[in-house]
């Protein structure tokens, strides 16, 4: 079977999983929001209107206004861009680091493996959220710093996955064949082993994005993530907390958006895992 047909077979199985498709649809929906915010709301997300503070949802403000009279819908759709891209970029950084470390550890084995995996163990010892809090205290909060920190504290799972795959792949015949043909170490690692580890990475990445979005929301909610007035779902929720008794819309909608996005990524991730797992074949 060619790689091409394996990919098609995987997609076909994925398409037959209604939960995964629903998750994918939710994510797609939020991506469309993030890409074309002005289509969904004509308001400027940072426009303060003190005459309309905490107005309930109405025709001109479908999701109401916040504690400075800013349109919540506009902030939600612009916040989608921030929240989704934080998830995406952070996870890309994590995968980049995880891939390299996993490949090196798995391929070279021995002492290299021991050193790298102990480093992974050390990183896993830190409670991630508190590590992030401590680092932000030093370098200061900004969108780029948040992406960076979530990335460099979240690669350990990927590294372990890649290492395990590499350990088994490097013993296969096609690697021996490549080596017999004179392929160098770099070529074997990146051209032959790496592509074969992508399926589990894709699963990990999808779930990882969900995690990163949650962490960003948490940090922004605590006021040390994305800094005002830039909207992110997390910091809209902060304003919601202060006014929850009489401005429910400020808490409900960003909360719902975070919930649905994370759920969507998780469903999609699990769907992909089922689709690429050969043990489920023929079910």
């Amino acid at each position: 079977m060619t790689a091409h047909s394996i990919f098609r077979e995987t997609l076909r199985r994925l398409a037959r999983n209604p939960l995964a498709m629903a998750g994918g649809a939710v994510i797609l929906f939020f991506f469309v929001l993030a890409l074309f915010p002005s289509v969904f709301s004509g308001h400027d997300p940072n426009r303060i209107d003190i005459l309309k503070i905490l107005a309930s949802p109405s025709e001109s403000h479908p999701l109401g206004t916040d504690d400075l009279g800013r349109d919540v819908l506009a902030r939600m759709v612009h916040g989608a861009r921030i929240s989704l891209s934080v998830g995406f970029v952070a996870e890309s950084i994590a995968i980049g680091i995880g891939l390299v470390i996993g490949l090196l550890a798995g391929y070279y084995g021995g002492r290299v493996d021991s050193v790298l995996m102990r480093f992974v163990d050390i990183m896993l010892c830190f409670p991630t959220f508190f590590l992030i809090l401590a680092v932000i205290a030093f370098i200061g909060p900004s969108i780029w710093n948040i992406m960076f920190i979530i990335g460099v504290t979240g690669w350990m799972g990927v590294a372990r996955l890649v290492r395990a795959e590499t350990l088994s792949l490097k013993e296969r015949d096609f690697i021996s064949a490549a080596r017999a043909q004179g392929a160098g170490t770099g070529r074997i690692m990146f051209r032959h082993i790496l592509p074969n580890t992508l399926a589990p990475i894709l699963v990990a990445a999808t779930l990882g994005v969900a995690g990163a979005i949650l962490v960003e929301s948490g940090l922004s909610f605590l006021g040390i993530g994305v800094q005002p007035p830039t909207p992110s779902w997390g910091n809209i929720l902060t304003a919601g907390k202060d006014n929850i008794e009489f401005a429910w819309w400020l808490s409900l909608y960003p909360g719902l958006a975070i919930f649905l996005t994370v759920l969507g990524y998780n469903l999609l991730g699990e769907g992909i895992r089922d689709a690429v797992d050969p043990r489920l074949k023929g079910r």
Partner: protein
Amino acid sequence: MSRPLRPRAVLSALSVLVLLSACGGSGKEAPGKGTAASDAPAHGDAIIEGSIGDISGFLSAVTTDASSHEAAGYVFNGLVRYDKDLRLEGELAESWDISPDGKKITFRLRKGVTWHDGAPFTSDDVMFTYRRMIDPKTPTAYGEDFKQVKRASAPDPHTFVAEYARPFAPALASWGMHILPKHLLEKHPDISRSPLNKKPVGTGPFRFVEWKTGEKTVFDANPAYFEGKPYISRVVTRVIPDLATMFLELKSGGLDLMNLTPLQYTRQTETAEFRKSFNRFRYLSSGYTYLGFRLSHPFFKDSKVRQAIAHAVNKKEVIEGVFFGLGQEATGPYKPGTWPYNPNVKRYPHDPSKAKELLAEAGWKEKDGDGVLKKDGRRFEFTVLTNAGNENRAKTAAIIQQNLSAVGIKMEIRTVEWAAFINEFVKKRKFDALILGWNITPDPDQYDVWHSSKTGPDELNHIGYANAEVDRLLEEGRRTFDTGKRKKAYFRIQEILAEEQPIVFLCYPDSLPAVHKRFRGIVPAPAGISYNFIQWYVPKGEQKYTTFRQ
């Protein structure tokens, strides 16, 4: 805003300048309830207050934030204090005489006063405190007042004499400084590092019980207090670094006293249920919020730039949008309605086009159509700092940010936790601009904040303001007891500050404390509500906390 937003009862008006973590203070809106027979004063019960920021120590000589000063106020006394009408009255001093030329004050101290550890209080303690205040090893922001003393003497254990080389108007008020116990501190050259800064022993109405950093401070009534044992047996101040959480705690019974935010006051406390359990008070607090600049910053050196920012900032929008109208536009560092306040200073109405004109005159011009002004290749971008947890300041910053972007200035906002904000940024001068509050003391002498010599790391002129005429007027104002002459000096200072705008004065917010209804004896006055804290009581039948774990 004014005093720390701390919803913490203040025993007496603060006599020195402190930084405010939020607005608040003392005063009242609700009418006092009639006193029925069953309401008879009784000892017992505890009051639990909420505070947004932890204290940094108990020795008020070496702290500059309102939380710490108020905590110290439970444990320590000064020789004098402000009464309910903000007039000076004796505290540890029974009475005093001022010589006809105003240069010599003779205090007669109360007899029979003891420190919480049982040692007697004498004039030696006052002398010791004075010496420490002028000691260069003491990192205090308040030494200046005491350096004015030419000669101090303690002729007998109950008399203390301070002589001044020249008349010094704030002299009497300066003796509101908390008196320190000599017998416990004399072995510690730097009092800020002494154990007493963490476990204070004072003469005050309450004794220190415990301080759990970041969590709470606890005080118990001092049965031997010279004005009688306070009715309330225990005071607990809980640190809750978020005002919305604090409010939920108040409503669920975890707190008895907090300063409400304007939003809570206008929208969340109108319910019958809230009114059934709490009295609300409202009065102009003794403090103001400002947008301050580090004046050595190349952008802010030029007074035209600062005037432009003053015109660009829409103070009305701040007062309406953030304070829901519960405050007044600030024009200077004095409180409206008090004698030093000058109502006729230059004002800066919201006027973006005027602001742009002034910026253009200062050389700031839009060049490439990206909406940000430039000069000598630098974009007009800076970061404003304020303390976290105070939503009002964050919202104020958001409004100012929008106002400034309309004239081509890009302002980033960063919020930092209170202690780090003061210690890492304000004291180390690591800021471009900040949003912060000062309190307003009853005596108008603000030498420590505005004089050009007061710019050291532990001193209060952290913006680095220097103006020769203001320096001279500050000196003049403190050298005479003639209120007319002092008024003239302080009026002129306000004119200069208004003209130069070293800081943009934003707002005098109202204090909006809410106190549980079981507390009686609260009588609002110009000094607020907490001046008579030791007379607050809970009638026997309504007491909530009856047994205390020590």
